């Protein structure tokens, strides 16, 4: 480890400690509602809603047809709403949701100054001031607030390299040939209930295309935010990395405090060609509901990447601390020979949160490798499940997988569950899986107390150590925020 790295660790540790102190009294730091006049679709879902969304976004005819087809598919899947997950919640009334809500804006701003001041204040409260980040960190931010992309920075710099990074609706208008070619090739609308729903009503999302041989010079990032009341957010993200290219993409989420459950059903598709690499990192911190389990976001996400080409690589990293319900299995289809899939996850549940998350690694090509590291932390009355599949197909010679899922229990009212599925159909495969469940030792806490570290800080320290292996995978900008989040999410779970 270089000295720089040590410095970083030290600073982030200090920041993390002070973050705890700062937020001891605050319940949910990011719980506020900004008043932006929304442009909403009427409640409920019908073909008319879809026509409304499509018209709002000035979509071409083929897109509307595609949406309607997905909607009809969804109607047929009514009985297929997934019930197998280890989650308990009251049935969702799909007619009681507003499917489209866009912040009102007259024209697309050319620079940040033209952006609605109140909107910018929202970002500042979140601590992601666009201008600040633009200058200091070199991150291009495509901020999505309630379904519509507001400001896209660094676009010109990227376009010089031939990289297309824009909102999905823009991509549909500007690059229909790319969208037509790749959209739903990884997650077809028929894939599952929520993917069908998303395909029908998705409002916006990010689109990224990295051409052959280009290494994206900066971390691409989007902050999602659910804003208007009663609005489901349905983003659709599509990232294509052509042969020999590299891209790292960050996704971070915060949402204001609400009483009613909000539905979120996103679809993310990644496509990596020969020798390409995609790194996708997520920090998810949506409103988890109050201490008694009222409210909170329902998060049903389908994320899947395909290693299409030789020696391609897809890496998922996620830090899940929010949402009342999390249903999320970022997967990799290892189709190209010598391709690599990775999944690193930290999932924290507190109070009455429930998470059922994990990954799927489908080994199809020869000499494919995958690695799964999952860390679950449960506290309060929460339930945290890891559900993962490692499938080695008949032709996947020399496939290799290593999975590790560890659970940490804080308190005796919570649950930790592990459901690994391992299916091997090739004799040359080597698959390993290991899992442990434990709690924080009293001796560990005592050791910290002795040295003047109070119990709550000690727990945060130990939890951060437990999750370090995954945190190390995050880009620097995210790692700091993610560490803060871990500490905040576990507040009040000790003692």
């Amino acid at each position, binding site marked *: 480890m270089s000295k720089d790295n040590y410095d970083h660790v030290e600073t982030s540790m200090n920041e993390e400690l002070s973050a705890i102190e700062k937020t001891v009294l605050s319940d949910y730091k990011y719980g506020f509602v900004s008043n932006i006049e929304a442009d909403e679709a009427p409640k409920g879902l019908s073909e008319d809603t879809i026509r409304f969304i499509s018209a709002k976004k000035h979509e071409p005819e083929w897109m509307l047809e595609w949406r309607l087809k997905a909607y009809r598919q969804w109607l047929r899947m009514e009985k297929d709403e997934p019930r197998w997950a280890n989650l308990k919640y009251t049935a969702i009334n799909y007619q009681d949701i507003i499917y489209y809500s866009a912040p009102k804006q007259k024209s697309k701003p050319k620079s940040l100054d033209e952006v609605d001041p109140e909107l910018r204040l929202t970002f500042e409260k979140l601590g992601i001031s666009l201008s600040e980040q633009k200058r200091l960190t070199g991150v291009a931010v495509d901020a999505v607030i309630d379904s519509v992309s507001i400001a896209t920075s660094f676009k010109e710099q990227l376009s010089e390299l031939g990289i297309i990074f824009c909102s999905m609706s823009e991509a549909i208008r500007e690059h229909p040939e790319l969208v037509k070619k790749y959209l739903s090739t990884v997650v077809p609308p028929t894939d599952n209930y929520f993917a069908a729903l998303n395909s029908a009503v998705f409002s916006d999302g990010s689109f990224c295309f990295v051409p052959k041989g280009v290494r994206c010079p900066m971390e691409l990032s989007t902050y999602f935010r659910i804003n208007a009341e009663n609005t489901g957010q349905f983003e659709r993200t599509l990232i294509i990395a052509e042969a020999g290219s590299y891209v790292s993409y960050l996704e971070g989420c915060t949402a204001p405090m609400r009483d009613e459950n909000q539905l979120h059903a996103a679809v993310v598709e990644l496509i990596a060609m020969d020798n390409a690499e995609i790194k996708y990192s997520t920090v998810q911190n949506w409103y988890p509901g109050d201490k008694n389990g009222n409210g909170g976001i329902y998060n049903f996400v389908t994320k899947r990447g395909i290693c299409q080409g030789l020696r391609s690589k897809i890496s998922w990293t996620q830090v899940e601390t929010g949402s009342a319900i999390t249903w999320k299995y970022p997967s990799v289809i290892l189709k190209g020979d010598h391709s690599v899939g990775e999944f690193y996850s930290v999932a924290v549940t507190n109070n009455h949160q429930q998470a059922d998350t994990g990954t799927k690694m489908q080994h199809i090509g020869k000499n494919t490798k995958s690695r799964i590291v999952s860390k679950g932390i449960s506290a309060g009355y929460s339930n945290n499940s890891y559900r993962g599949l490692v499938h080695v197909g008949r032709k996947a010679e020399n496939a290799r997988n290593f999975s590790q899922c560890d659970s940490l229990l804080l308190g005796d009212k919570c*649950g930790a569950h*592990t459901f690994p599925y391992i299916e091997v*159909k090739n004799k040359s495969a080597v698959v390993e899986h*290991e*899992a442990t*469940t434990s709690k924080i030792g009293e001796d560990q806490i005592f050791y910290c107390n002795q040295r003047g570290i109070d119990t709550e800080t000690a727990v945060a320290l130990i939890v951060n150590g437990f999750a370090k292996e995954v945190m190390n995978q995050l880009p620097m900008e995210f790692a700091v925020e993610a560490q803060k989040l871990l500490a905040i999410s576990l507040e009040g779970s000790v003692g």
Partner: protein
Amino acid sequence: MSFVENYKEHFEQLLSVKDKKELSGIRENAFNAFAEFGIPTSKHEEWKYTRIGALFNRPYRFLLDPSHAVTVADIDAFRLPGHQEANELIFVNGIFSSALSKIISKGLAVVPLEEAAADSRYKQLVAAHFGNSGHYLKDGINALNTALVNGAVFVQLTKGMAVGLPVYIYNINDARKENIFSQPRSLIHVTENAQLQIVETYFTLGVEESFTNQVMEIVVEENALLEYYKIQNDAGNANQVSTTHIRQAGRSYVHTVTVSLNGGIVRNNLNMILEAERCESHLYGLYFQKGKSHIDNHTVVDNVKPNCFSNELYKGVMNDESTGVFNGKIFVRQQAQKTNAFQSNKNILLSDDASVNTKPQLEIFADDVKCSHGCTVGQLDEEALFYLQSRGIGQKMARSLLIQAFASDILEHVKLAAIRKHVEHLVAERLEF
């Protein structure tokens, strides 16, 4: 749904028999459950990898009549070594045959279940424990056994008795004339301070197909000790669903070894319910499959009370076109603090057409526990093979040595010497590729 109607007929026939009234309530509930659940399909999470639906499309003879054509000589061909010094319980076509059985140990009571249910000595026990497996196995196949219980047996080992001689249980299907469907059922009570060793095996006479749907429920009381060995090496068209449901009602020690070497579709449910504090259980299993056989081991270790210990190790070797399934569940209830539970599953694939599906599950609701599970799928170690070959051992021999070593981790846990030799011999035979 014609098979439900078919079994309904059998069911009504059983209900109409007057002197078997004690069980009719349980039976009726179970039949309703069967009608509701039906035969499990691959949509049932616990049956995802094992498909038995097609087996029920074939015609089977299901007999309620205890008379049969199996002779002592028929059984002699299959007797396990050491049988001279053992109690032998024999089920023919799922119905207990007292004529063929041999009970030589004192303190070992073997009573038809219907009689035990009416007998004041056993009545309460039967009421408390019969059908308990249904709480854990919510599927039609378990309910079907309970609904059509017939010719079942109640076994009790008297307080403080070490049986001295083991109990061998044979499940025989007479498929010489036609396909047979059989449902052996037993309830075994190991009382306080008693010690019991059980060895169970299955075989089918004749060349026709058989389907055994067995349920065995065992209750182990305070300070008792149970060793249970299951040997499955039946014909390639002998299918079975075999449930062994063990309740550790008092602080006790249970040791099980399941050795599955051949069969058609074989599904084992082994439930270990640790209902008292300071219980200890060991679960070992070896599956070594050939041909098109399918083996599915589903185990449940349910830690209900604190301070229990369990260790589980299942190993599999899959050859030819065989498929193996392992599904191990460890539950740790909120009350069960200080639980230590370990689970491990290791598999070797020997051929291109073999496959294995494994699913080690942990469900934990208590925080002060030590639980771990691990599983691996791989091949024979190339380096070890090379080491042996470089010392003049042929490749075939080297492979067979390595597999024997792999299997011996399980077989060494068979504490009955005669039986251990027997299974070691069966494995060695298989290794002559």
